[in-house]
């Protein structure tokens, strides 16, 4: 007896393609050195910032510290967030109210209060006095 092709395709659809449009056991080649990854990221929530000196030049290697600034905050991962060569950083954190400060050469800047939005990355530009 000859069966229609749909019968053979159906199990593959049911068993393989229900998780984020990708089979959970489907291997995806990723090189940790070069960057592509299993999950695409287009809407990360957190603080997208930049640290500059008074002359407007980016500060690289500064450490960005986050603390809770309200009665209730989401868990804050104790991640070390550093500025890159463009002075840019991204602090991945759920929405809430936080104080943020910049550590450079073991010294802390003044604190800034920031409310992280739930719909898009929250921008922040910090200009250090020194």
């Amino acid at each position, binding site marked *: 007896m000859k069966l229609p092709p749909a019968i053979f395709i159906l199990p593959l659809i*049911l*068993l393989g393609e229900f998780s984020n449009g990708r089979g959970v056991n489907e291997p995806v080649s990723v090189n*940790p050195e070069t960057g592509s*990854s299993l999950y695409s990221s287009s809407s990360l929530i957190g603080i997208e910032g930049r640290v500059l000196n008074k002359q407007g030049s980016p500060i690289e290697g500064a450490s960005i510290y986050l603390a809770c600034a309200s009665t209730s905050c989401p868990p*804050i*991962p*104790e991640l070390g967030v550093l*500025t*890159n060569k463009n002075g840019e950083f991204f602090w991945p954190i759920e929405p809430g109210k936080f104080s943020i400060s910049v550590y450079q050469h073991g010294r802390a800047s003044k604190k800034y209060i920031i409310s992280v939005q739930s719909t898009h990355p929250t921008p922040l530009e910090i200009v250090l006095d020194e």
Partner: protein
Amino acid sequence: MNHQFMLRAITTTILSFATPILYASFAPHAAVSNDGKVVYAPNVARGVGGGVNGEPPKLAKGETLDSQAEYPAFVMTSTEMQDLKHNFKPATSGRLMPSSVLGAIDSRYRIYPSASGHPERAIGQITSSQNGKNYICTGWLISPNTVITAGHCVHTGGSNGVWSTNVKFFPGRDATNNPYGSCTAKSLHSVQGWTKNNDTNYDYGAIKLNCTIGNSTGTFGFFWQSASLVGLPIQVSGYPGDKPAGTQWSTSGDIDVSDAKKIQYKHDSFGGQSGGPVFQTDRVGSFCTGVCASAIHTNGGTSVNKATRIDQSVYNNMIYWKNLP
């Protein structure tokens, strides 16, 4: 007509079998890696794995259902052996006791891994990128090429998250001095509870290295037990971002709260210490003696800091990752 009937019957049959499979496609402790592989229940045989100097772990009497341990591996240089002969204790050398910061008591003390030896040199700084931004974390060796760390140090968390890139591990880093060089990552690992749900209860992961530096530094032992960990004297070590770059710091104290998946303690810590070991240096007990970790540091707070507790599922995944090539 016959074809339609047959198609409907087969569809119904497949759905009845497939539905549980679909629901089962998420398991919080299912091990995932950055090549997309998912392992739902790692087959971890008890008592298998490297123990002290490569010997199998010794399972104590009664260690059957509510506790389990993987033993540390010590490596001593000829100089350290020489030091021991002269009653020198490398584990406590090179430490500066508490300093004060900004008027508040900072209980952290600096570690000099080269002088301290094992286990301090089995702890290292992790540098990485996520979406082109730079991050630092802490990790610790449990085998020659396996580093344990926080989940958020290898993956940003949640189904929209990304795996870290440009991952490097610097064991025993001491400022600009890297006595064991650095190793790149061969693969990254965590669990679905973190990579899909961003759930801090499942915030743990591992890095398989492109080197076997643990043969030179020694490794950590680790254990789980169903009994409470409250009152257990512990040390929490890591590479905080508020101290001179690349320096290792530690605190000592007890565990205050012991939940099923998290523990809490009042140890000072800072961003960059995520992934650090919560451990005992001189554990004496019926199982896992010596340098034994019980949790993975993950979160800072205003009154307490938190770590992911090594429970049986975490332990099994750690063994699974340890045994990966």
